[in-house]
């Protein structure tokens, strides 16, 4: 069974209570169409689970296949530096058809990320963090995007709202 290494920690981007009974980790690529398909599903899952769920996003950009994935990840990490990671994450998944540099500059303005912060991201300030996410994913058995982990174990089941909520509720009910 593929297991999440390293475990979720303070450097991760998380939504939901840190002591939620179940943690869902997504390894994702902002330009990956399957991640784009999963985006509204995961939103609905979060809604259904409420404060029973902590959701974590880690970077797994497949930059050879997706020319804008690296820059998009840099943009989101730059947004994280001003506390706007999730706004950036959502904007990217809601506009997967426009991830070129000019679009990223426009999204930066939308969320109040100034040019200096964005430029620092584009120049590689957060590349170490992105690389760290990526390598951790490889070691954890990430085999494509999106790959999901439920309480640290890779989830290979169907990715529809009902199946996911059922799995997460079952995981939440298990004694820790």
């Amino acid at each position: 069974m593929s297991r999440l290494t390293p475990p979720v920690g303070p450097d991760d981007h998380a939504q939901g209570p840190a002591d939620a009974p179940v943690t869902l980790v997504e390894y994702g690529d902002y330009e990956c169409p399957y991640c784009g398909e999963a985006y509204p599903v995961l939103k609905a899952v979060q809604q259904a689970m409420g404060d029973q769920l902590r959701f974590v996003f880690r970077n797994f950009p497949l930059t050879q296949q997706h020319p804008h994935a690296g820059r998009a990840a840099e943009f989101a990490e730059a947004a994280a530096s001003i506390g706007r990671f999730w706004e950036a994450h959502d904007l990217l998944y809601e506009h997967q058809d426009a991830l070129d540099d000019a679009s990223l500059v426009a999204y930066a303005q939308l969320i109040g990320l100034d040019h200096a912060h964005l430029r620092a991201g584009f120049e590689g300030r957060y590349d170490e963090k992105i690389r760290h996410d990526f390598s951790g994913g490889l070691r954890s058995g990430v085999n494509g995007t999106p790959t999901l982990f439920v309480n640290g174990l890779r989830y290979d089941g169907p990715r529809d709202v009902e199946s996911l909520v059922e799995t997460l509720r079952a995981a939440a009910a298990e004694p820790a």
Partner: protein
Amino acid sequence: MPETSAPAGVLAPGQPAPAFTLPATPDQSLSLADLKGRPVILAFYPADWSPVCGDQMALYNEILPEFHRYGAQLVGISTDGVWCHAAFAAERKLHFPLLADFEPKGGVARRYGVYREHDGTSERALFVIDGAGAIHWSYVSPLGLNPGADGILDALDTLAAKNGAGVAP
């Protein structure tokens, strides 16, 4: 990695890796002997273009730098022909050789114990071969499941530890 029931006959750690020479492009061939002295990752996969394979080869393409830190060379092998491989590699922008185990069909896959007689393709099988040409690790994945890279990386770690070799940072 999940446990799988490997087909009988798949070569196991400690056994010598059978030598082979296969076409890598329409006018070039590659021999296992050419790669001696460094670890080799042999990735047998059923076919170019099938979605799971595509993801697996695309993933490995993405992490070539990780493999290179161990000095390891990655080689993909399927029973597809050279022109098919050439189109697939160009479309997916793959930066490692794909060998055509095409004539005699699956000849190399048979020698490694990973040929699927009824399908005319190989298993989805991974081998890590040490610099001296012995199999260090082998793994057969369920056909439809992309095995990822954690098993390969763990095998490269144990190989580097055995040889007392460092891994580039």
